[in-house]
């Protein structure tokens, strides 16, 4: 099953990585490896849970400026095809439990390429209003309705 691309809500990143698929897979599924690249330095990443199987939890924390570790990503793996594909979402937490502030599902695919790995990430987001509310503008619940109205006015044009 392939997900259709919605240009207003989705983004895709694709890249040829000059390393074998197994190395890229390990970077995504091995805690110590994942901590090395998930968050930009100097902030530090700590993997709390990484159960790489459908329904498994993916839980990371981050620390900035040497401060305490705070929640970063709380997600649930939806599909795990070894060396080929990882699908996860922050709409759920480990064990399929619904999450508080869902907004994203990511599909990471790895394919063989003569130079190494054909790597792609397709990231799907919720509607604009919710995205703005949760992630950027610090909107509280009441503002969600407002931005939805705004979006409806403009998109209806």
């Amino acid at each position, binding site marked *: 099953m392939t997900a259709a691309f919605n240009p*207003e*809500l989705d*983004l895709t*990143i694709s*890249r040829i*990585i*000059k*390393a*074998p698929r197994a*190395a*890229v897979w*390990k*970077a*995504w599924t091995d805690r110590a*490896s994942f901590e*090395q*690249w*998930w968050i*930009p330095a100097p902030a530090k990443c700590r993997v709390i849970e990484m159960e790489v199987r459908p329904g498994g939890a993916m839980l990371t924390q981050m620390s900035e400026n040497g401060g305490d570790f705070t929640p970063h990503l709380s997600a649930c793996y939806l599909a795990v095809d070894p060396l080929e594909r990882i699908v996860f979402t922050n709409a759920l937490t480990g064990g399929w439990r619904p999450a508080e502030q869902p907004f*994203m599902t990511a599909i990471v695919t790895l394919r063989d390429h003569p130079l190494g790995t054909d*790597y792609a*990430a397709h*990231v799907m*987001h919720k509607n*604009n*209003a919710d*995205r*703005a509310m949760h*992630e*950027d*503008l*610090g*909107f509280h619940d*009441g*503002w969600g309705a*407002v*931005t939805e*109205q*705004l*979006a409806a*006015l*403009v998109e*209806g*044009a």
Partner: protein
Amino acid sequence: MEHYSEPLNGVFQALADPTRRAVLGRLGQGPASISELARPFDMALPSFMKHVRLLEGSGLIRTRKQGRVRTCALEKAPFAAVEAWLDGQRAIWEGRTDRLEQFVTANVSEEETST
């Protein structure tokens, strides 16, 4: 977050009224003059102008006077903030992919040199 609360109060106030929502809906189809905008409403012009000024003050629309005609248009900036969100997410994922690539290719060359 405080930074956003003041303009958003204006946005909320602007959207709280059916006349103003109708005006925004009309402007979503393209710029229009005040008289054109006022036509559907059974309202004296000074009252209608209050709505226009409130919308302008909220940053949702801008108006421009040319000769004797004042034209209103939707201001896209409040909506641009929403679009910017996706660009921000893209930048985050580009960064992740850069670091992933760097991490795995550095490991590969280490393994190659050590064997």
